[in-house]
């Protein structure tokens, strides 16, 4: 008969758990919101560029929160910006993930004491999945942060979302 019947009779069927398939699909194409804040953003851009090539993990910048899966908070978050970040985060569709990149986004960094304008950690506003330490972190560190996030997504189930 037709081509399809022949394909199926040859045993070209892959059996997988829905969880595994969903997780594999999600972790293999994490579209990040094109969003940079300070010197960490320079490292993030270097990670996206050809030498470190974020794209080999399926990470491409998407310039709308409505079609992105992750947001990398790459730099110093001022109180003024924190309100905007929260709004961007709320516009992203579920499931959504956050990588906090660098000391400033993690805990305020060098501005922890006298930074009257700095939010001391983005986790005061939105929930963070992976913290990447460094000031700024090298591209390798950000890549490892992404791998950690992929690891986290790999262990999710449809029933309970861990992140």
């Amino acid at each position, binding site marked *: 008969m037709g081509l399809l019947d022949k394909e199926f009779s040859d045993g070209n069927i892959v059996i997988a758990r829905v969880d595994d398939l969903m997780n594999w699909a999600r972790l293999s194409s994490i579209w990040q919101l094109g969003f940079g804040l300070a010197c960490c953003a320079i490292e993030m851009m270097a990670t996206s560029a050809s030498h470190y090539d974020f794209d080999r993990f399926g990470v491409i910048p998407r310039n709308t929160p409505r079609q992105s899966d992750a947001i990398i908070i790459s730099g110093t978050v001022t*109180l*003024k910006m*924190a*309100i905007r970040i929260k709004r961007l985060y709320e516009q992203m569709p579920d499931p959504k993930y956050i990588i906090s990149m660098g000391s400033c986004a993690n*805990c*305020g960094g060098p501005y*922890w*004491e006298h930074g*009257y*304008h700095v*939010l*001391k950690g983005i986790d*005061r*506003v939105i929930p963070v999945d992976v913290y990447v330490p460094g000031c700024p972190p090298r591209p390798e560190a950000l890549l490892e942060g992404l791998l950690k996030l992929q690891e986290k997504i790999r262990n999710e189930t449809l029933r309970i979302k861990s992140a």
Partner: protein
Amino acid sequence: MKNPEEIFEILKREFDETLLSIDNSAPTEPIINIAPIGIMKVSRFLRDTEELKFDSLMVLSGVDEANGIKIKDEDGVETITGGNLSVYYHLYSTTLRHKITLKVTTSRDDPQVESVESVWKCADWHEREAYDMFGIIFLNHPDLRRILMPYDWEAGYPLRKDYKNPEFYQGMKVPY
């Protein structure tokens, strides 16, 4: 090319003695003090006079002199009453290649200084910054809003020496 003393002599010929004075004690170049009401007139003269031609305002910055009465309460929180706020103007002439520093001193309780936005356009944002950080009111400024801090920031002016940061801003905790 003229040095600050020569520039001061030219200014003295043109303007009232009460409006300006020269301060030679600074370890830097001499600074010309100018009254808060009158800086616009002097600035325009400095820009337009053929032998001065100060066509560039390199920077305009606010300073809290913190020379008022300092009172410490039992928590160690210091408040300053009285004293002065200052505005410094660093001018440069790109054609004659000379520089001058102007200083305007105003009271800390009611800081009002004439705007020089109509003389050098770049003063617009510089004055907004000085307003944002020190609360100096620039008279006749076309758009005196905060420039760095959020528009709804109500905790005061961050670079004043007795500034106290708020506990919360829009539900976000501010201290570490």
